[in-house]
């Protein structure tokens, strides 16, 4: 990328008007939920969730969805939090904050497709890191959720250029990053990085956002970036991609990212990739339902 392009990206990201605002309860709630499960104070979680109308409403809606098959929908935030479990509250929280930070109008990408991929990738990252006993599952989940944030920036800061890239990708059935590079000269990795830096995200997350297509080039957190790279590829070949046929062959175990992970986690040798793929298939429907439940409402709100 030339300096001129880098300057343009920074300039446009700076000008994005709706500065994504992070709800006040986000950080304290995340901190509470990151405690070991037996130490989480349920009353505190309920109190914090109740502070934010959007999150509270979305928790109630998800808890009442057919996904949980309850005879009677929970009427209180407490009931909803108990029904959902802490992990789901966390998922809803993270996605609401991100979803609310960006408008749902004038998206070049279908927002629900975007969220299916982001949530799907977050889920795969967590499950993958569970296979590698030493990895941090929560961090991996967050990384998966945020990795493609650059697409949102593209929708807002480069709407025409990005629309053209998406059109090319669909027409030629090629991966989006390839079409971006061919038509715009840069990708969501660069625009995502600019936003991540503007938001002062932790350096690991900046590396993930900037290098999830080129983990070997990341300047730190390489194993995490490699894990996201492989999870992203897996999502895109198992029905959690960007909603079109990507004509690509993926050889995970001969990917540079695999070599990076291999150095860090000896457990990787024992992972049965085919069985792992089948296990992921089992979760796809649930990811789709979750997105429909959370964002069916977000779309109505705007």
């Amino acid at each position, binding site marked *: 990328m030339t300096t001129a392009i880098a300057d343009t990206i920074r300039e446009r990201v700076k000008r994005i008007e709706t500065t994504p605002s992070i709800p006040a309860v986000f950080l304290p709630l995340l901190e509470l939920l990151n405690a070991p*499960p*037996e130490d989480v104070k349920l009353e505190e979680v309920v109190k914090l969730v109740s502070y934010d109308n959007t999150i509270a409403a979305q928790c109630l809606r998800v808890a009442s969805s057919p*996904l*949980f*098959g309850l005879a009677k929908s929970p009427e209180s935030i407490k009931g909803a939090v108990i029904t959902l*479990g*802490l*992990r*789901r509250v966390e*998922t809803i929280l993270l996605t609401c904050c991100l979803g609310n930070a960006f408008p749902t109008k004038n998206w070049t990408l279908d927002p629900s497709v975007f969220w299916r991929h982001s949530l799907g990738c977050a*889920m795969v990252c*967590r*499950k993958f890191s*569970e296979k590698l006993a030493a990895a941090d599952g929560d961090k991996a*989940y967050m990384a998966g959720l945020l990795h493609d944030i650059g697409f949102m920036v593209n929708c807002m800061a480069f709407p025409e250029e990005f629309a053209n890239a998406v059109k090319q990708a669909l027409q030629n*059935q090629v991966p989006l990053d390839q079409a971006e590079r061919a038509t715009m000269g840069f990708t969501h990795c660069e625009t995502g990085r600019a936003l991540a830096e503007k938001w002062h995200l932790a350096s690991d997350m900046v590396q993930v956002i900037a290098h999830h297509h080129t983990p070997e080039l990341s300047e730190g957190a390489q194993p995490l970036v490699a894990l996201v790279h492989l999870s992203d*590829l*897996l999502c*895109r*070949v*198992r*029905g959690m*991609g960007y909603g079109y*046929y*990507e*004509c*690509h*062959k*993926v*050889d*995970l*175990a*001969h*990917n540079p990212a695999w070599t990076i992970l291999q150095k860090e986690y000896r457990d990787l040798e024992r992972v*049965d*990739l*085919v*069985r792992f*793929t*089948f296990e992921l*298939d*089992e*979760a796809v*429907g*649930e*990811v789709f339902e*979750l997105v429909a439940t959370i964002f069916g409402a977000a779309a109505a709100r705007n």
Partner: protein
Amino acid sequence: MTTGMQPAFSTAAPIKAAMDPIFRQIRDLVYKVSGIYQLDEKLYLLADGCGRRIKQLNIKSPREYWDLLTAHSSREAELRQLLNEITIGETCLFRSQPQLDALHKIVLPEIVVEKTKQVTKRLRIWSAGCSTGEESYTLAMNMLEQSERLLKGWTVEILATDLNDRSLEAAKAGIYGDYALRATTDYFKRKYFVTLDEKKLQVKPEVKKLITFSRLNLQDDSKMLFMKGMDIVFCCNVLIYFDGPSKSKVIDHFFSNLNLGGYFFLGTSESLMKLNDQFHLVHFPGAIAYWKPSLQSSKL
């Protein structure tokens, strides 16, 4: 998960929770022995299969059935019975569209490029364990569809083998009813079949012409050595009946019989597990295959 934490995306629906946990244990055992994985949402098929065996054997509970499946004296025979139960009725034409998409969008273009330098433009596909011919004819029709496009000027040979003479006779006849044709579109029905009566369609001779049916035991080493020069091998739900060592041997034969750059496909819920480290496991959208890397493209 061994901690008390709840996984992010599973065990949510009560319908899943209501399933006797023993069936997950049986699922894992079946996978370990055969490489067949029953997804959670298909677990009821496994439960149904077990149910039929439980009834036939006149035993009381899934737990007792588990004991039978794991007891040294009965495990091998009973697992075979159970595998028969769960793969029954699986076969139909056009069974896996993602597999066919991968074949004509990615695999064929790659092989065609790979072989352009060769004088004879010949593509060889092997349907190993072809049973009553559904897969072989599906492949043949798909290749015919490409005969004016990708495969213009190519000769396509499909070799379909099975151990069972009765299956082979049925395969040669190529007559199918509604159930076998449930995934076949009208386009293919009109183009490649003739109507025999209200309920039966027969494959046209032009499709049959592409296929050679013959009897072969995959465990017959001397014959397996002569199956050279394959570009693509399909072997769906066949290896599941072999024990570990025989399975490894058959897979090694497939590997050596494939040309460089060739592909090996299994059934959609089937895995080679770790029985061969020469093949590269590759993912296509919705499909998995095993690839014998070509010399120039051993890196992606």
